[in-house]
């Protein structure tokens, strides 16, 4: 476990503290590395038994788009990883309604089941968090 958590002995050093962590994904999946490396932090956070949620807004909604074909750009298609999040007990996935609509998308276009919320509802959720990490 300490290899996964970067040498942190989870039990000893955080002593059962559970905080609300929100990961805000704002960027398209390819073109920059933010989405891919952001997802790596999400996966690690699962090892710490925190209250984790993910938000997708702006071009970040494209991270969840079905049917990503990346062969022509020689990039790894990492969208299947989002489907694996459930196995890590990460099941609070929120997508901003306005961002979907602006891009002509609906929840049916996405690789995972999500809760679609308005910007106002997401703002409320954000205000309740202890830690907000934006990638």
């Amino acid at each position, binding site marked *: 476990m300490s*290899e*996964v*958590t*970067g*040498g*942190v002995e*989870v039990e000893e*050093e*955080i002593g059962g*503290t559970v*905080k609300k*962590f929100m990961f805000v994904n704002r960027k398209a999946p390819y073109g920059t*590395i*933010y989405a891919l*490396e952001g997802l*790596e*932090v999400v996966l*690690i*956070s699962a*090892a*710490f038994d*925190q209250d984790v949620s993910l938000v997708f807004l702006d071009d970040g909604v494209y991270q969840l788009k079905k049917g990503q074909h990346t062969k022509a750009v020689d990039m790894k298609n990492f969208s299947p990883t989002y489907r694996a999040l459930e196995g890590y007990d990460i099941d609070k996935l929120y997508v901003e309604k306005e961002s979907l609509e602006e891009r002509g998308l609906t929840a049916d276009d996405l690789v995972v089941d999500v809760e679609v919320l308005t910007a106002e509802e997401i703002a409320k959720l954000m205000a309740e968090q*202890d*830690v*907000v*990490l*934006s*990638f």
Partner: protein
Amino acid sequence: MKFGILVNEGPFQHQAADTAYHFIKAALDRGHEVHRVFFYHDGVNNANKLSEPQQDDRNVVHRWSKLAEEHGIDLVVCVAAALRRGIKDEILAPGFRISGLGQLVESGIQADRLVVFGD
């Protein structure tokens, strides 16, 4: 208040490292504690001791090392992000260490506020 800091951008392409540095200085001046700065994405380039800025410019890498030395701040570079970008132990500036992303999550848990500097 106890702060954790996340720096997500390289030292010169983007202002994030400068803003983070000045934020930390201001926080320390007001008696706050900064327990760790975590470097992620291109932010890992802040740890490259081979960086040689021009004489009349600020030395971002050296500035971090000095901050660590004077205030005992833990400067942690993400191992996965670092390996991708060729940042290894042999080119780490003083005060930096390479470790895993768990150090970032732990910082979020232990600090009163985790402040993100990035794009």
